[in-house]
């Protein structure tokens, strides 16, 4: 089966890499933001993310 790809040398990450790293930073930001918000809600007695009690 014929395939055409952009191949890199094994020593350096490809061009996609910086976008991949940006995406993982976004995921970390979401984790921190959701954790901070839900803990704020819980410790102030307002409920958990995203519901109420």
């Amino acid at each position: 089966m014929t395939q055409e790809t952009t191949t890199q040398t094994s020593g350096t990450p490809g061009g996609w890499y910086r976008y991949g790293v940006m995406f993982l930073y976004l995921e970390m930001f979401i984790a921190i933001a959701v954790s901070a918000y839900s803990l704020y809600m819980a410790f102030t007695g307002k409920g958990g993310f995203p519901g109420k009690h």
Partner: protein
Amino acid sequence: MKTHKVEQLVIATVGFFWCFLMWFSTAAFSPSIAAHYHLNIAELGLLASSAIWMAPIGRIIAGWAADRFGAPRTFAIILAGCGLVSIASAFTSSYEVLFIERVIVAIAGVSFVVGIQHVAQWFDASEIGTAEGLYAGTGNVGAGVGALVLPRLFGLDYQGAFLWLGVIALALAAWYLWRGEAARHETARHTARQSSDLRGTVFVWTRYIAIALMLAYAMSFGLEIAMNAWLPGYFSRGFHEAILALGFSSVVGVQIAAGTFAAVQSFSASLFRPFAGFMSDVFQRRGWTPMPFIAKTLPYAPRLHWLAIALILITLSMIALTIAGLAGSLPLSVLVLVLFGVFVSFGPGGTFALVPLLFPDRPGVAAGFIGGVSTAGGIVYPLIFAHSGNIHMGYLYAAVTMLIPFVLFYFWAARYERHPEEHGLFELPPPAAETEKA
């Protein structure tokens, strides 16, 4: 067909995300299923446990099948099979039949190792940590998204949710077959196919380093899924008075507060996992080998050191959880739990940045063994937690009886400066291709 490795990564990640969504969709609707069929507590517990049953043996078979038949075919069969049964379960009126169908749908959880094999067949050694981390971490979020979104989207209508989850799974199966390619190079595909025999499987299962990675995954991902099940009950019982003092007076309120504290661990563990793979790449590029005893000259030695650091941090945070609990401090316990969630993500991210490099000719078989057997941790840890007398002491008991021995075994297995995969329970000669690549 023209394709790109990023497209293959996206296909695998979306497929895995959906499989995890289906895997935990039963749990998301267990209250409405229990109300519909008038289930008692024991039956509800049995229903909740059904998600884990197929994982250990299923992942072993799925990893082998990915090497043998290619990831696209294997993944498409899992998606289509689970999707069809999910659709069938939407029209079921007997609880016994529904239970069996949901156990079959839970097979979707085995897809993890198929995607690991797929990504490993496409990405270079220098970027494998980030690629595998993005795949596994983003896909893992499917479990949390299911718990948060599905009940809000469908309310009590679990039949409608199961129907749509199944229909979209069928569409994803067709997409995977249409655009998925098993490997970047035909030689890699051919090697994996040829290596998926019984001798190759026995070789992987008996290597000390494979056993060490399996235990590393058991003390990270295995512990993560165990904590998902354990933590809501832990907070509601261990910190009942403190939660009441926050203003959560009703049973539902205590449940929401305890669930929120528990969710922090699950969320962090999933979303920090790509970062853990990225850190493995950083260690590799910069040649960092700070740990004593562990090999320093192997081509992937820095990645071994990063995983060792992760395992030590997980163990320390487990001990800290006991200390915070015994101190009776809810804020301190939650703070330690946040750190635990981050550290526990380092283990899976670090493990699967190594597996394809250690066993390049049989990534599916290796991923199936390491990612499959280790899920039994999800059953074992809660048993230790529940039988420790003081509810806060369970973490310390688990750390002393399981985690510390696992870490010591990892240090011992990773000390070989030349081809750690040569060393195992039986003196099997390593396949020539693996020796050359290692």
